[in-house]
Protein backbone atom coordinates (compact mmCIF):
# COMPACT_ATOMS: atom_id res chain seq x y z
CA UNK A 1 0.00 0.00 0.00
CA UNK A 2 2.89 2.37 0.70
CA UNK A 3 3.93 2.31 -2.92
CA UNK A 4 0.55 3.41 -4.24
CA UNK A 5 0.52 6.82 -5.88
CA UNK A 6 -0.96 9.57 -3.76
CA UNK A 7 -4.21 11.14 -4.86
CA UNK A 8 -3.46 14.43 -6.51
CA UNK A 9 -5.45 16.46 -3.99
CA UNK A 10 -3.20 15.15 -1.16
CA UNK A 11 -0.13 16.01 -3.15
CA UNK A 12 -1.61 19.47 -3.73
CA UNK A 13 -2.05 19.92 -0.01
CA UNK A 14 1.60 18.99 0.57
CA UNK A 15 2.56 21.38 -2.16
CA UNK A 16 0.71 24.24 -0.51
CA UNK A 17 2.40 23.49 2.81
CA UNK A 18 5.77 23.78 1.11
CA UNK A 19 6.95 20.17 1.45
CA UNK A 20 8.22 17.75 -1.17
CA UNK A 21 10.89 19.25 -3.31
CA UNK A 22 11.75 16.04 -5.12
CA UNK A 23 9.40 16.52 -8.04
CA UNK A 24 11.13 19.40 -9.69
CA UNK A 25 11.97 18.72 -13.31
CA UNK A 26 15.44 17.58 -14.14
CA UNK A 27 17.24 20.04 -16.33
CA UNK A 28 20.11 17.75 -17.04
CA UNK A 29 22.11 18.22 -20.25
CA UNK A 30 19.99 17.28 -23.24
CA UNK A 31 20.21 13.60 -24.20
CA UNK A 32 21.05 12.77 -27.79
CA UNK A 33 17.59 11.62 -28.89
CA UNK A 34 14.92 14.32 -28.91
CA UNK A 35 11.39 13.38 -27.94
CA UNK A 36 9.91 15.57 -30.65
CA UNK A 37 11.57 17.11 -33.67
CA UNK A 38 9.64 19.45 -35.96
CA UNK A 39 11.22 20.23 -39.30
CA UNK A 40 9.81 23.05 -41.42
CA UNK A 41 6.19 22.57 -40.41
CA UNK A 42 3.65 24.55 -42.41
CA UNK A 43 -0.11 24.39 -42.16
CA UNK A 44 -2.55 26.09 -44.48
CA UNK A 45 -6.30 26.40 -44.02
CA UNK A 46 -7.47 27.42 -47.49
CA UNK A 47 -5.57 30.62 -48.23
CA UNK A 48 -4.63 31.23 -44.63
CA UNK A 49 -1.25 30.13 -43.42
CA UNK A 50 -1.65 29.04 -39.78
CA UNK A 51 1.90 27.76 -39.29
CA UNK A 52 5.01 28.61 -41.23
CA UNK A 53 8.50 27.17 -41.05
CA UNK A 54 8.26 25.79 -37.54
CA UNK A 55 11.46 24.09 -36.43
CA UNK A 56 11.57 22.84 -32.87
CA UNK A 57 13.38 20.20 -30.86
CA UNK A 58 11.96 18.96 -27.56
CA UNK A 59 14.03 16.82 -25.18
CA UNK A 60 12.93 14.27 -22.57
CA UNK A 61 11.94 16.00 -19.32
CA UNK A 62 11.21 19.29 -21.06
CA UNK A 63 8.22 21.31 -19.97
CA UNK A 64 7.80 23.57 -22.94
CA UNK A 65 5.15 26.26 -23.01
CA UNK A 66 3.86 27.73 -26.25
CA UNK A 67 2.90 31.31 -25.55
CA UNK A 68 1.07 33.64 -27.82
CA UNK A 69 -2.07 35.58 -28.46
CA UNK A 70 -5.26 34.02 -29.80
CA UNK A 71 -4.68 32.97 -33.39
CA UNK A 72 -0.91 32.80 -33.05
CA UNK A 73 -0.95 29.10 -33.99
CA UNK A 74 -0.45 27.43 -30.59
CA UNK A 75 -3.41 25.06 -30.75
CA UNK A 76 -2.83 24.31 -34.42
CA UNK A 77 0.74 23.34 -33.63
CA UNK A 78 -0.38 20.96 -30.89
CA UNK A 79 -3.04 19.48 -33.19
CA UNK A 80 -0.48 18.94 -35.91
CA UNK A 81 1.89 17.21 -33.47
CA UNK A 82 -1.00 15.03 -32.25
CA UNK A 83 -1.83 14.30 -35.89
CA UNK A 84 -5.34 15.64 -35.47
CA UNK A 85 -4.44 17.80 -38.45
CA UNK A 86 -2.04 16.97 -41.25
CA UNK A 87 0.78 19.47 -41.81
CA UNK A 88 0.74 20.97 -45.31
CA UNK A 89 4.49 20.46 -45.44
CA UNK A 90 7.32 19.52 -43.11
CA UNK A 91 8.15 16.53 -40.99
CA UNK A 92 7.35 15.51 -37.42
CA UNK A 93 9.49 12.94 -35.67
CA UNK A 94 8.54 11.53 -32.29
CA UNK A 95 11.48 9.65 -30.81
CA UNK A 96 12.88 9.65 -34.34
CA UNK A 97 9.76 7.94 -35.70
CA UNK A 98 8.12 9.75 -38.59
CA UNK A 99 4.55 10.37 -37.42
CA UNK A 100 3.14 10.40 -40.97
CA UNK A 101 4.35 6.84 -41.58
CA UNK A 102 3.87 5.23 -38.19
CA UNK A 103 0.98 7.20 -36.77
CA UNK A 104 -0.33 4.51 -34.41
CA UNK A 105 3.13 3.81 -33.01
CA UNK A 106 3.41 7.49 -32.11
CA UNK A 107 -0.15 7.91 -30.84
CA UNK A 108 0.47 5.36 -28.10
CA UNK A 109 3.16 7.68 -26.73
CA UNK A 110 0.96 10.78 -26.69
CA UNK A 111 -1.62 12.03 -24.24
CA UNK A 112 -3.73 15.09 -24.94
CA UNK A 113 -5.47 17.29 -22.37
CA UNK A 114 -7.54 20.09 -23.83
CA UNK A 115 -10.07 22.59 -22.63
CA UNK A 116 -12.74 20.09 -23.70
CA UNK A 117 -12.88 17.12 -21.38
CA UNK A 118 -13.09 14.45 -24.13
CA UNK A 119 -15.46 12.53 -21.86
CA UNK A 120 -18.82 10.90 -22.58
CA UNK A 121 -21.23 12.50 -20.16
CA UNK A 122 -23.75 9.65 -20.26
CA UNK A 123 -21.16 7.08 -19.28
CA UNK A 124 -19.77 6.63 -15.78
CA UNK A 125 -16.18 7.51 -14.95
CA UNK A 126 -15.23 3.82 -15.02
CA UNK A 127 -17.02 3.21 -18.34
CA UNK A 128 -15.23 6.17 -19.89
CA UNK A 129 -11.83 4.84 -18.85
CA UNK A 130 -12.75 1.31 -19.92
CA UNK A 131 -13.74 2.58 -23.34
CA UNK A 132 -10.51 4.49 -23.87
CA UNK A 133 -8.50 1.57 -22.47
CA UNK A 134 -10.05 -0.70 -25.08
CA UNK A 135 -9.21 1.84 -27.77
CA UNK A 136 -5.55 1.61 -26.69
CA UNK A 137 -5.73 -2.22 -26.46
CA UNK A 138 -4.45 -2.11 -22.89
CA UNK A 139 -3.68 -5.24 -20.93
CA UNK A 140 -4.80 -5.64 -17.30
CA UNK A 141 -7.21 -2.84 -18.01
CA UNK A 142 -9.47 -3.21 -14.99
CA UNK A 143 -6.52 -3.07 -12.58
CA UNK A 144 -5.15 -0.03 -14.33
CA UNK A 145 -8.54 1.68 -14.21
CA UNK A 146 -8.87 1.10 -10.47
CA UNK A 147 -5.35 2.37 -9.90
CA UNK A 148 -5.91 5.48 -12.01
CA UNK A 149 -9.27 6.29 -10.44
CA UNK A 150 -7.71 6.03 -6.98
CA UNK A 151 -4.83 8.21 -8.10
CA UNK A 152 -7.08 11.05 -9.27
CA UNK A 153 -9.34 10.61 -6.23
CA UNK A 154 -12.42 9.49 -8.13
CA UNK A 155 -12.63 5.91 -6.91
CA UNK A 156 -15.75 6.65 -4.89
CA UNK A 157 -17.42 8.36 -7.83
CA UNK A 158 -16.33 5.71 -10.33
CA UNK A 159 -19.84 4.48 -11.04
CA UNK A 160 -21.48 7.89 -11.29
CA UNK A 161 -22.27 9.35 -14.67
CA UNK A 162 -19.90 12.10 -15.75
CA UNK A 163 -22.88 14.38 -16.43
CA UNK A 164 -23.16 14.99 -12.67
CA UNK A 165 -19.46 15.77 -12.18
CA UNK A 166 -18.17 19.24 -11.33
CA UNK A 167 -15.71 20.88 -13.74
CA UNK A 168 -12.85 20.02 -11.39
CA UNK A 169 -13.88 16.35 -11.22
CA UNK A 170 -14.22 16.25 -14.99
CA UNK A 171 -10.74 17.67 -15.38
CA UNK A 172 -9.35 15.04 -13.00
CA UNK A 173 -11.07 12.33 -15.01
CA UNK A 174 -9.83 13.96 -18.18
CA UNK A 175 -6.27 13.69 -16.87
CA UNK A 176 -6.95 10.06 -15.94
CA UNK A 177 -8.17 9.44 -19.47
CA UNK A 178 -5.18 11.13 -21.06
CA UNK A 179 -2.66 9.22 -18.94
CA UNK A 180 -4.40 5.84 -18.59
CA UNK A 181 -2.21 4.32 -21.29
CA UNK A 182 1.00 5.71 -19.77
CA UNK A 183 2.05 8.27 -22.41
CA UNK A 184 5.57 9.65 -22.48
CA UNK A 185 4.51 12.99 -23.93
CA UNK A 186 1.61 15.12 -22.85
CA UNK A 187 0.15 17.81 -25.08
CA UNK A 188 -1.99 20.32 -23.19
CA UNK A 189 -4.11 22.99 -24.82
CA UNK A 190 -5.19 25.71 -22.38
CA UNK A 191 -5.72 23.09 -19.65
CA UNK A 192 -6.39 25.70 -16.94
CA UNK A 193 -9.18 27.36 -18.84
CA UNK A 194 -12.39 27.35 -16.82
CA UNK A 195 -10.86 25.69 -13.76
CA UNK A 196 -11.39 27.00 -10.23
CA UNK A 197 -8.43 27.60 -7.89
CA UNK A 198 -8.56 24.16 -6.31
CA UNK A 199 -8.70 22.32 -9.61
CA UNK A 200 -5.88 24.51 -10.97
CA UNK A 201 -3.71 23.65 -7.96
CA UNK A 202 -4.40 19.95 -8.51
CA UNK A 203 -3.49 20.21 -12.15
CA UNK A 204 -0.24 22.06 -11.38
CA UNK A 205 0.76 19.41 -8.87
CA UNK A 206 -0.02 16.67 -11.26
CA UNK A 207 2.02 18.28 -14.05
CA UNK A 208 4.96 18.56 -11.68
CA UNK A 209 4.68 14.84 -10.91
CA UNK A 210 4.58 14.02 -14.60
CA UNK A 211 7.69 16.06 -15.39
CA UNK A 212 9.37 14.64 -12.28
CA UNK A 213 9.18 11.21 -13.87
CA UNK A 214 11.30 12.41 -16.79
CA UNK A 215 8.34 12.74 -19.14
CA UNK A 216 7.64 15.65 -21.44
CA UNK A 217 4.92 18.30 -21.55
CA UNK A 218 4.06 20.73 -24.32
CA UNK A 219 1.47 23.22 -23.17
CA UNK A 220 -0.23 25.98 -25.12
CA UNK A 221 -1.48 28.91 -23.10
CA UNK A 222 -1.89 32.64 -23.09
CA UNK A 223 -2.27 32.70 -19.33
CA UNK A 224 0.94 33.63 -17.53
CA UNK A 225 -0.35 33.07 -14.03
CA UNK A 226 -1.10 29.35 -14.01
CA UNK A 227 1.13 26.34 -13.43
CA UNK A 228 4.31 27.77 -14.87
CA UNK A 229 6.67 27.26 -11.91
CA UNK A 230 8.18 24.09 -13.40
CA UNK A 231 8.49 25.21 -16.98
CA UNK A 232 12.00 25.09 -18.35
CA UNK A 233 11.44 26.26 -21.94
CA UNK A 234 9.22 28.80 -23.63
CA UNK A 235 8.39 29.48 -27.23
CA UNK A 236 6.68 32.72 -28.19
CA UNK A 237 4.46 32.26 -31.22
CA UNK A 238 3.38 35.06 -33.52
CA UNK A 239 1.53 34.66 -36.80
CA UNK A 240 2.32 30.96 -37.02
CA UNK A 241 6.04 31.24 -36.43
CA UNK A 242 8.22 30.83 -33.38
CA UNK A 243 9.28 34.42 -32.82
CA UNK A 244 11.48 33.70 -29.80
CA UNK A 245 12.64 30.74 -27.75
CA UNK A 246 13.43 31.38 -24.10
CA UNK A 247 14.48 29.53 -20.98
CA UNK A 248 15.15 30.45 -17.37
CA UNK A 249 13.33 32.16 -14.54
CA UNK A 250 9.52 32.29 -15.05
CA UNK A 251 9.39 35.80 -13.55
CA UNK A 252 11.78 37.17 -16.15
CA UNK A 253 10.03 35.25 -18.92
CA UNK A 254 6.75 36.80 -17.84
CA UNK A 255 8.26 40.26 -18.13
CA UNK A 256 9.79 39.43 -21.50
CA UNK A 257 6.45 38.13 -22.78
CA UNK A 258 4.64 41.27 -21.68
CA UNK A 259 7.28 43.33 -23.43
CA UNK A 260 6.95 41.12 -26.51
CA UNK A 261 3.20 41.74 -26.58
CA UNK A 262 3.73 45.51 -26.14
CA UNK A 263 6.20 45.56 -29.05
CA UNK A 264 3.80 43.65 -31.28
CA UNK A 265 0.92 45.89 -30.31
CA UNK A 266 3.12 48.86 -31.15
CA UNK A 267 3.94 47.35 -34.51
CA UNK A 268 0.27 47.07 -35.40
CA UNK A 269 -0.86 50.48 -34.08
Amino acid at each position, binding site marked *: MQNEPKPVWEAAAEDESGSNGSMTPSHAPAPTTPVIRLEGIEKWFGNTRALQGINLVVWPGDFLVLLGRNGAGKSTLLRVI*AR*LAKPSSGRILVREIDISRHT*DQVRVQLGFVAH*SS*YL*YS*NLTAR*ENLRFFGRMYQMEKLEERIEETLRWVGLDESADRRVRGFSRGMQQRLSIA*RATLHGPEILLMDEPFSGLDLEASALLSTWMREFIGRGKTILMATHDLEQGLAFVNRWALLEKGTIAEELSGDPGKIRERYKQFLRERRGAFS
Partner: protein
Amino acid sequence: MVHFLNQVGAILWKDILTEFRTKDAITSMLLFGLLVILMFHFAFEPDSLETEKYGPGLLWVTFIFAGMLGMNRTFAGEKENDNLQSLMLAPVNWGAIFIGKMLANLLFMLMAETVILFCFSIFFNVNLVPRLGWVALITFLGTLGFASAGTILAAVSMNTRMSDVMLPILFLPVALPAILGAVESTAAALTDPPGEALGFWLKFLVVYNIIFITLPLLLFDYVLEE
Protein backbone atom coordinates in the same frame (compact mmCIF):
# COMPACT_ATOMS: atom_id res chain seq x y z
CA MET B 1 -7.89 -7.95 -37.26
CA VAL B 2 -8.66 -8.90 -33.64
CA HIS B 3 -7.65 -5.39 -32.51
CA PHE B 4 -9.84 -3.88 -35.20
CA LEU B 5 -12.85 -5.95 -34.14
CA ASN B 6 -12.20 -5.17 -30.47
CA GLN B 7 -12.23 -1.47 -31.24
CA VAL B 8 -15.38 -1.81 -33.35
CA GLY B 9 -16.97 -3.67 -30.43
CA ALA B 10 -15.93 -0.98 -27.94
CA ILE B 11 -17.41 1.81 -30.06
CA LEU B 12 -20.61 -0.15 -30.67
CA TRP B 13 -21.00 -1.01 -26.99
CA LYS B 14 -20.38 2.60 -25.98
CA ASP B 15 -23.05 3.82 -28.40
CA ILE B 16 -25.53 1.17 -27.22
CA LEU B 17 -24.96 2.12 -23.57
CA THR B 18 -25.37 5.81 -24.36
CA GLU B 19 -28.51 5.23 -26.43
CA PHE B 20 -30.18 3.04 -23.85
CA ARG B 21 -29.57 5.74 -21.26
CA THR B 22 -30.71 8.70 -23.34
CA LYS B 23 -33.09 6.95 -25.76
CA ASP B 24 -32.65 9.99 -28.03
CA ALA B 25 -32.39 8.25 -31.40
CA ILE B 26 -34.76 5.34 -30.89
CA THR B 27 -37.53 7.43 -29.31
CA SER B 28 -37.45 10.06 -32.04
CA MET B 29 -37.34 7.44 -34.83
CA LEU B 30 -40.18 5.44 -33.31
CA LEU B 31 -42.47 8.38 -32.60
CA PHE B 32 -41.89 9.93 -36.00
CA GLY B 33 -42.31 6.60 -37.80
CA LEU B 34 -45.54 5.75 -36.03
CA LEU B 35 -46.97 9.20 -36.69
CA VAL B 36 -46.18 8.95 -40.39
CA ILE B 37 -47.78 5.50 -40.66
CA LEU B 38 -50.83 6.81 -38.84
CA MET B 39 -51.05 9.85 -41.13
CA PHE B 40 -50.72 7.75 -44.27
CA HIS B 41 -53.43 5.47 -42.96
CA PHE B 42 -55.91 8.30 -42.42
CA ALA B 43 -54.90 10.12 -45.61
CA PHE B 44 -55.32 7.13 -47.93
CA GLU B 45 -57.56 4.67 -46.11
CA PRO B 46 -56.13 2.13 -48.54
CA ASP B 47 -57.94 -0.96 -49.77
CA SER B 48 -55.95 -4.14 -50.42
CA LEU B 49 -55.18 -3.25 -54.04
CA GLU B 50 -53.86 0.18 -53.13
CA THR B 51 -51.86 -1.26 -50.26
CA GLU B 52 -50.20 -3.69 -52.65
CA LYS B 53 -49.44 -0.81 -55.01
CA TYR B 54 -48.36 1.95 -52.60
CA GLY B 55 -47.66 0.09 -49.34
CA PRO B 56 -43.98 -0.74 -49.96
CA GLY B 57 -43.26 2.85 -51.01
CA LEU B 58 -45.02 4.31 -47.97
CA LEU B 59 -43.25 1.86 -45.68
CA TRP B 60 -39.76 2.71 -46.98
CA VAL B 61 -40.44 6.44 -47.03
CA THR B 62 -41.32 6.08 -43.36
CA PHE B 63 -38.17 4.05 -42.67
CA ILE B 64 -35.98 6.58 -44.47
CA PHE B 65 -37.32 9.70 -42.82
CA ALA B 66 -37.45 8.10 -39.39
CA GLY B 67 -33.94 6.72 -39.93
CA MET B 68 -32.58 10.15 -40.82
CA LEU B 69 -33.62 11.44 -37.42
CA GLY B 70 -31.47 8.74 -35.86
CA MET B 71 -28.60 9.29 -38.26
CA ASN B 72 -28.50 12.96 -37.38
CA ARG B 73 -27.62 11.82 -33.85
CA THR B 74 -24.77 9.56 -35.01
CA PHE B 75 -22.01 11.98 -34.11
CA ALA B 76 -23.91 14.08 -31.56
CA GLY B 77 -22.24 12.22 -28.70
CA GLU B 78 -18.84 12.66 -30.32
CA LYS B 79 -19.33 16.41 -30.71
CA GLU B 80 -20.48 16.96 -27.16
CA ASN B 81 -17.04 17.32 -25.58
CA ASP B 82 -15.01 17.09 -28.80
CA ASN B 83 -14.93 13.35 -28.15
CA LEU B 84 -14.31 12.54 -31.76
CA GLN B 85 -10.86 14.08 -31.36
CA SER B 86 -10.11 11.73 -28.49
CA LEU B 87 -11.03 8.81 -30.73
CA MET B 88 -8.80 10.19 -33.45
CA LEU B 89 -5.94 10.54 -30.96
CA ALA B 90 -6.07 6.85 -30.04
CA PRO B 91 -4.19 4.25 -32.08
CA VAL B 92 -7.41 3.31 -33.84
CA ASN B 93 -7.91 2.47 -37.47
CA TRP B 94 -10.48 5.12 -38.30
CA GLY B 95 -12.34 2.49 -40.30
CA ALA B 96 -13.20 0.94 -36.92
CA ILE B 97 -14.92 4.20 -35.94
CA PHE B 98 -16.97 4.05 -39.13
CA ILE B 99 -17.95 0.39 -38.73
CA GLY B 100 -18.79 0.81 -35.04
CA LYS B 101 -20.98 3.83 -35.74
CA MET B 102 -22.59 2.19 -38.75
CA LEU B 103 -23.46 -0.95 -36.76
CA ALA B 104 -24.97 1.19 -33.99
CA ASN B 105 -27.09 3.03 -36.56
CA LEU B 106 -28.12 -0.27 -38.13
CA LEU B 107 -29.15 -1.70 -34.77
CA PHE B 108 -31.18 1.33 -33.69
CA MET B 109 -32.89 1.62 -37.07
CA LEU B 110 -33.76 -2.08 -37.13
CA MET B 111 -35.25 -1.83 -33.65
CA ALA B 112 -37.44 1.11 -34.63
CA GLU B 113 -38.35 -0.50 -37.96
CA THR B 114 -39.51 -3.69 -36.26
CA VAL B 115 -42.14 -1.73 -34.34
CA ILE B 116 -43.03 0.40 -37.38
CA LEU B 117 -43.41 -2.73 -39.51
CA PHE B 118 -45.73 -4.27 -36.93
CA CYS B 119 -47.89 -1.14 -36.90
CA PHE B 120 -47.82 -0.98 -40.71
CA SER B 121 -49.18 -4.53 -40.92
CA ILE B 122 -52.03 -3.60 -38.55
CA PHE B 123 -53.00 -0.23 -40.05
CA PHE B 124 -52.66 -1.37 -43.66
CA ASN B 125 -54.08 -4.80 -43.00
CA VAL B 126 -51.10 -6.63 -44.48
CA ASN B 127 -50.39 -10.14 -43.26
CA LEU B 128 -46.61 -10.24 -43.13
CA VAL B 129 -46.34 -13.61 -41.39
CA PRO B 130 -46.17 -15.80 -44.54
CA ARG B 131 -43.45 -13.51 -46.01
CA LEU B 132 -41.70 -12.66 -42.78
CA GLY B 133 -38.40 -14.20 -43.90
CA TRP B 134 -38.29 -12.18 -47.11
CA VAL B 135 -39.45 -8.98 -45.43
CA ALA B 136 -36.83 -9.39 -42.68
CA LEU B 137 -34.07 -9.98 -45.26
CA ILE B 138 -35.12 -6.99 -47.37
CA THR B 139 -35.44 -4.77 -44.30
CA PHE B 140 -31.97 -5.82 -43.15
CA LEU B 141 -30.32 -5.29 -46.54
CA GLY B 142 -32.07 -1.97 -47.19
CA THR B 143 -31.31 -0.66 -43.72
CA LEU B 144 -27.67 -1.77 -43.94
CA GLY B 145 -27.25 0.32 -47.07
CA PHE B 146 -28.95 3.33 -45.49
CA ALA B 147 -26.95 3.00 -42.28
CA SER B 148 -23.68 2.78 -44.20
CA ALA B 149 -24.33 5.72 -46.54
CA GLY B 150 -25.95 7.68 -43.72
CA THR B 151 -23.04 7.19 -41.33
CA ILE B 152 -20.39 8.60 -43.65
CA LEU B 153 -22.66 11.44 -44.74
CA ALA B 154 -23.44 12.23 -41.11
CA ALA B 155 -19.67 12.51 -40.61
CA VAL B 156 -19.40 14.80 -43.65
CA SER B 157 -22.26 17.02 -42.53
CA MET B 158 -21.42 17.10 -38.82
CA ASN B 159 -19.14 20.11 -39.07
CA THR B 160 -21.27 22.06 -41.49
CA ARG B 161 -23.23 25.06 -40.31
CA MET B 162 -26.66 23.46 -40.77
CA SER B 163 -25.86 19.81 -40.27
CA ASP B 164 -29.49 18.82 -39.58
CA VAL B 165 -30.52 20.11 -43.01
CA MET B 166 -27.34 19.10 -44.77
CA LEU B 167 -27.67 15.38 -44.00
CA PRO B 168 -30.98 14.85 -45.86
CA ILE B 169 -29.73 16.95 -48.78
CA LEU B 170 -26.62 14.79 -49.09
CA PHE B 171 -28.23 11.52 -48.10
CA LEU B 172 -31.39 11.26 -50.19
CA PRO B 173 -29.73 11.37 -53.64
CA VAL B 174 -27.12 8.84 -52.52
CA ALA B 175 -29.77 6.59 -50.97
CA LEU B 176 -32.04 6.72 -54.00
CA PRO B 177 -30.81 3.44 -55.57
CA ALA B 178 -31.22 1.65 -52.24
CA ILE B 179 -34.69 3.10 -51.80
CA LEU B 180 -35.58 1.85 -55.27
CA GLY B 181 -34.15 -1.60 -54.54
CA ALA B 182 -35.86 -1.85 -51.16
CA VAL B 183 -39.27 -0.69 -52.45
CA GLU B 184 -39.21 -2.95 -55.51
CA SER B 185 -38.05 -6.01 -53.60
CA THR B 186 -40.63 -5.42 -50.85
CA ALA B 187 -43.36 -5.07 -53.51
CA ALA B 188 -42.18 -8.30 -55.12
CA ALA B 189 -42.07 -10.11 -51.78
CA LEU B 190 -45.59 -9.00 -50.83
CA THR B 191 -47.19 -10.45 -53.95
CA ASP B 192 -48.40 -14.00 -53.82
CA PRO B 193 -46.34 -15.87 -54.96
CA PRO B 194 -43.27 -13.59 -54.66
CA GLY B 195 -42.54 -11.85 -57.96
CA GLU B 196 -39.69 -12.84 -60.24
CA ALA B 197 -38.10 -9.45 -59.78
CA LEU B 198 -37.34 -10.24 -56.12
CA GLY B 199 -34.05 -12.00 -56.88
CA PHE B 200 -32.81 -9.16 -59.07
CA TRP B 201 -33.60 -6.43 -56.53
CA LEU B 202 -32.08 -8.40 -53.68
CA LYS B 203 -28.85 -8.75 -55.67
CA PHE B 204 -29.08 -5.04 -56.43
CA LEU B 205 -29.27 -4.29 -52.69
CA VAL B 206 -26.31 -6.56 -51.97
CA VAL B 207 -24.20 -4.77 -54.59
CA TYR B 208 -25.24 -1.37 -53.23
CA ASN B 209 -24.22 -2.48 -49.74
CA ILE B 210 -20.84 -3.77 -50.89
CA ILE B 211 -20.14 -0.43 -52.58
CA PHE B 212 -21.42 1.69 -49.69
CA ILE B 213 -19.52 -0.22 -47.05
CA THR B 214 -16.26 -0.36 -49.00
CA LEU B 215 -16.20 3.26 -50.20
CA PRO B 216 -16.76 4.84 -46.77
CA LEU B 217 -14.10 2.55 -45.30
CA LEU B 218 -11.65 3.91 -47.86
CA LEU B 219 -12.79 7.52 -47.53
CA PHE B 220 -13.44 7.87 -43.82
CA ASP B 221 -9.88 9.01 -43.02
CA TYR B 222 -10.26 11.91 -45.44
CA VAL B 223 -13.64 12.83 -43.99
CA LEU B 224 -12.31 13.00 -40.43
CA GLU B 225 -8.97 14.62 -41.14
CA GLU B 226 -8.84 18.37 -41.72
